[in-house]
């Protein structure tokens, strides 16, 4: 029989590729399982919530009492003005703003009316916010000597889950192009790389490839808007600010992908590493679930990942209609990250030249 002989060949081949096989059949499923299980915890128990004064008459004691009442189901942060708290809400640094009325300890006053502001664009938080209102009502009812009413108000448009996922699609596509498709086309250049190095330089090859795909990324945005216009959708993704974030994000991830491929000498390891980075980016950028839904440790990790800020910015631009200036510091950070990635990629080009 030929099959047993060929199976024997596969086993011998596998012995030489143990690390690659372990990466594909052990590490990848483990990462996938971790990411998936993480998504099951959809009811946040310690999401950051802003506690802010409704008026100037609200004292520090009032805010501290309110904060104590929400501590059991969130990680409260006191803001000194409601405007600052709402800005933080728009940047997804907090997922609700509890607006605190004055004189909570004054039993002579009537009912204390609290308002919980929820951003209409953060759809996964809509349902949990109902529970938060109930918990707040009961918690504050026992903490202060006044009757308590808690109302819930949405800031901005209240979107459906499918619309909420539109920015997720934009960033995910950018990551897939940068870490999936770009490396594949770069690998195809390997067969002609020596000629390119004679006729031009690796720097020029990398730059042209990044520019080409960065320009190409405008196409899916146009297509999305065209299809949405035909079927009567409510959001538009095509805009200068969104495109700027997409291009900067692509350049960052694309430079990482190129650096990995050059380090791996265009081998199978380059493909596997880029795939792992892609999974990491998709799993640890808060692409689908807001970062507040994660454990504190994972939340910390997500906040160190530059693409997380790209996700929140695109959500803010597309769904909340906020100006790019709201996210100027993050965009600056992304551009700085591109600069660092460019330096690293430049280093790998030099290393590749030395090894060649």
């Amino acid at each position: 029989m030929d099959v047993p002989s060929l199976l024997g060949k596969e086993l011998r081949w596998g012995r030489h590729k143990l690390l690659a096989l372990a990466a594909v059949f052990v590490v990848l499923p483990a990462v996938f399982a971790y990411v998936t299980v993480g998504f099951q915890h959809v009811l946040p128990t310690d999401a950051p919530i802003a506690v802010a004064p409704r008026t100037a008459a609200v004292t520090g004691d009032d805010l501290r009492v309110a904060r104590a009442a929400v501590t059991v189901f969130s990680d409260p942060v006191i803001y000194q003005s409601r405007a600052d708290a709402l800005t933080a809400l728009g940047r997804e640094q907090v997922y609700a703003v509890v607006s605190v009325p004055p004189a909570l300890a004054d039993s002579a006053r009537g009912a204390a009316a609290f308002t919980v502001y929820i951003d209409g664009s953060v759809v996964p938080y809509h349902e949990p916010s109902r529970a938060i209102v109930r918990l707040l009502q009961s918690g504050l009812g026992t903490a202060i000597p006044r009757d308590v009413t808690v109302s819930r108000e949405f800031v901005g448009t209240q979107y459906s889950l499918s619309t909420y996922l539109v920015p997720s699609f934009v960033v995910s596509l950018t990551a897939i192009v940068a870490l999936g498709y770009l490396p594949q086309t770069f690998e195809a250049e390997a067969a002609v790389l020596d000629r390119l190095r004679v006729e031009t330089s690796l720097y020029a090859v990398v730059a042209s490839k990044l520019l080409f795909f960065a320009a190409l990324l405008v196409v899916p945005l146009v297509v999305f808007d065209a299809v949405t216009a035909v079927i009567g959708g409510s959001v538009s993704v095509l805009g200068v600010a969104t495109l700027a974030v997409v291009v900067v994000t692509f350049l960052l991830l694309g430079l990482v992908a190129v650096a990995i491929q050059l380090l791996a000498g265009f081998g199978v390891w380059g493909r596997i590493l880029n795939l792992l980075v892609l999974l990491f980016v998709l799993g640890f950028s808060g692409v689908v679930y807001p970062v507040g839904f994660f454990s504190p440790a994972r939340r910390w990790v997500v906040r160190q990942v530059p693409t997380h800020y790209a996700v929140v910015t695109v959500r803010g631009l597309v769904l909340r209609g906020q100006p790019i200036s709201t996210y100027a510091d993050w965009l600056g950070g992304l551009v700085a990250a591109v600069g660092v990635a460019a330096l690293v990629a430049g280093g790998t080009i030099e290393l590749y030249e030395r090894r060649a």
Partner: protein
Amino acid sequence: MITATDLTKTYGETTALAAVSVAWDEGLHCLAGPNGSGKTTLLRVLAGLTRHDSGSVTVPESLGVAFQTPNVYADLTVAENLDVFGALAGATDEWRASLVDQLRLDPVAGRTAGALSGGFQKKLDLALALLKRPDALLLDEPLADLDPATRRRLVDTVTRYSAEHTVVASTHHLNAFADDYATLTVVRDGRLLDSWDRPAAPNDPGSVYDRLLDRENGF
């Protein structure tokens, strides 16, 4: 003019080049030696594709290279390959047409390079190397795996070009260049074994080369 002085290159424990010095002026210069002798490494160092450990290299700024394994875009047609590298080289339409004509690439201009036979890929690779009319041309095994007719066509093109430029060809097919070469250099184990200038060079370089290697091997 290509000059290299005391070139040394090692890969870990393996010495690919050991203090190799060469000086090649206008004309066709053949570089011979058994497999693994350091021919390709020497050409790659001269082309700036591989960094040497010590020694010095001087090559013209305009340098063309034809590779042992053709460096062509397999997914592009022959014409598109010529377009891409012609634009990089700043090739004129006349020169490009002349190369296509000399190397008989017209019949396959619309075919993807990856679908071509090895011979046509070699010819395309040579055409790409010549697009910028380089002052010096390096050829790594340009005649390997070619049928006699294709081999003759490449030899004609290379010989014609060497009349006014420096051309270095590493090859096992020395007799194919027997009428035209200016110098013959033999390397082995990264060392220069011997070299001849044309007046003193053998008319039958293949047999001389074989005898030289036999002597080295103790036969």
